[in-house]
């Protein structure tokens, strides 16, 4: 089926080459980082994880959210999602690849990557994260490919693939729960040391991922002959609405615990992020942008008229995605280090090379996404009007 990615319109090739060019620039900067070391980034002794790990954390959520379209379809036989499950599965693949690339970019000694597998360490959450991420990537490639291949031949997917589909449904939340455990099990980091970290992660994942799928569905419909269906997009809109409400509520719970208890350590990071402390407040504009976008998206999502209108739904989805990208891809990880465990403040801001490398990884993600979607859409365009009972 890969050959379907090799034929396309002029616009398709311009897009592909633009992404390749950005990837190339990112790679040049990565080579620079390899020779100089991670000192090329804005990270320091006090803020030892930054943009890379933030992106990883956010994208694990996007990857996990594929389950939001796969689960209703396979477990509840929700036929409307039949057309878009492949879009969910094929979104998971580039997301996990990006996660892995960001981890790779963040490693001081990337050549020693295999040490994680050569010296398996069951007491390290990171070992489990590597395991579940790798497994999830394989599951989505296998399931997506098998289902699409069957669809192309107008036959139901082979029976052997069913167990893998059910496994992937159970597997998806695990990748995000394990990622949350990276943070929520650390002593001395009060901002992360919260039992609702995992559910917060799931809520934000199941809001940001489907909001991206909505946007991708609208793009696919606009530029190809494949229509994911209005009803499917509306159903995704409802999922985003409920999960975004939960996400905002959970953040509110964190505020309550911190500020009603008045335990200084639990308040400090929130103060730093939203008001600034001791004159430090580099992230304030970002965090308030995130908060405003969250409120704005909720107004559009909760109001049925604006949720039903695809234009305003698209705006709401973009707002959700941006809001959560800031909150999780930046504030959550960086905030956990500020103030540090001795109540000292070292601020963090990504440097130019760090940003270019990050954009480069996103470009690789979009490249894989484009190729996979091109294949999926081409198959779909061939079988337009034919509904196969899967």
């Amino acid at each position, binding site marked *: 089926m890969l050959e379907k990615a090799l034929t396309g319109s002029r616009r398709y090739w311009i897009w592909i080459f633009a992404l390749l060019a950005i990837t190339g620039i990112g790679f040049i900067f990565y080579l620079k980082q390899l020779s100089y070391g991670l000192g090329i980034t804005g990270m320091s002794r006090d803020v030892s994880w930054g943009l890379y790990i933030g992106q990883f954390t956010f994208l694990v959520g996007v990857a996990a959210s594929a389950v939001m379209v796969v689960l209703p379809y396979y477990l509840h036989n929700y036929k409307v999602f039949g057309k878009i499950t492949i879009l969910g599965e094929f979104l998971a693949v580039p997301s996990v690849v990006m996660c892995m690339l960001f981890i790779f970019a963040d490693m001081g000694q990337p050549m020693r990557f295999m040490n994680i597998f050569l010296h398996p360490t069951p007491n390290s959450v990171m070992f489990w994260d590597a395991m579940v991420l790798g497994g999830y990537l394989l599951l989505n490639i296998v399931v997506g490919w098998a289902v699409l291949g069957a669809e192309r031949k107008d036959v139901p997917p082979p029976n052997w693939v069913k167990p893998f589909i059910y496994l992937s449904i159970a597997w998806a939340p695990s990748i995000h729960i394990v990622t949350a455990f990276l943070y929520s099990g*650390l002593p001395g980091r009060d901002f992360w040391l919260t039992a609702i970290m995992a559910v917060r992660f799931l809520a934000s994942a199941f809001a940001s991922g489907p909001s991206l799928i909505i946007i991708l569905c609208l793009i696919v419909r606009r530029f190809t002959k494949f229509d994911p269906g209005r009803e499917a997009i509306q159903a995704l809109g409802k999922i985003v609405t409920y999960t975004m409400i939960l996400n905002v509520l959970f953040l509110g719970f964190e505020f309550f615990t911190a500020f009603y208890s008045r335990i200084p350590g639990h308040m400090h990071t929130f103060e730093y992020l939203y008001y600034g402390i001791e004159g430090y407040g580099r992230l304030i504009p970002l965090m308030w942008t995130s908060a405003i976008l969250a409120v704005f998206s909720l107004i559009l999502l909760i109001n049925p008229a604006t949720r039903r209108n695809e234009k305003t739904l698209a705006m709401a989805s973009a707002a959700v995605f941006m809001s959560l990208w800031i909150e999780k891809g930046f504030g959550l990880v960086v905030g956990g280090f500020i103030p540090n465990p001795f109540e000292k403040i070292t601020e963090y801001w990504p440097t130019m090379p760090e940003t270019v490398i990050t954009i480069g990884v996103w470009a690789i993600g979009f490249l894989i996404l484009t190729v996979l979607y091109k294949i999926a859409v081409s198959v779909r365009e061939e079988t337009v009007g034919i509904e196969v009972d899967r």
Partner: protein
Amino acid sequence: MSISRREFLKIAGASAIFGLGGMAIINEITDDIEASQFSPGPDALIAKRWAMVVDMRKFKTEEDYRKIIEACHSIHNVPDFGNPKDEIKWIWTDTFEHAFPGQEHEYMEEKLKRMPFVLLCNHCDNPPCVRVCPTKATFKRKDGIVMMDQHRCIGCRFCMAACPFGARSFNWRDPRGKDDKGRPFIKEENKEYPTRTKGVVEKCTLCFERLAKGLKPACVEASNGALIFGDLKEPNSEVRKVLSTNYTIRRKAELGTMPSVFYIIG
């Protein structure tokens, strides 16, 4: 002799399974071996549980602090990058409020508040850094020393996020390199101790290499009795005597990591 493709696959599959299994067994065996670049000599100092007491009463002048930091950093080739962003430190000082956050109050004696406290890796009984390391690059020896294998470290910095004492430093750039003006980051290299590469985490290892030769840690030797070092499990040891006759506190005891560095405040 010819084999069919099917047979070949069978053999290949079986070898892969046995190969992996064999590797796991070897890993299990090697796990029990005490990793050390220095095998202990006949005079080696041995303890069941090493610990240190910092007697803050004995620190009078800036020179007292400088001496111990210098002693440690010079023999261990700790680089000086000249900026806080890339900083690497094994032993350093900070004020009471930063050393013992949450324990300070506004009516404290001004002298105590301003006093620089000697800080280093706490060599916890229950070290979070060891728990989170995905490659066992950081591990705890049987005598309680939390060690670092810089050849195994992948530079993920999970241990830095996990350590509540900020005892770990990362080589953000090449410590063997030079600054813009051509001055090396390691002023005078001690050839008897390895330098590190960029991209790995490092920390105080209680001078395990000196203990193997029968010497006390460099900071203890340079401290003129202000740092007391010994076996916590030995009832007659000097640390035990000091601990039983003085009121001591530990950093962030509430986190349950069980630090083995104790402080006599005054």
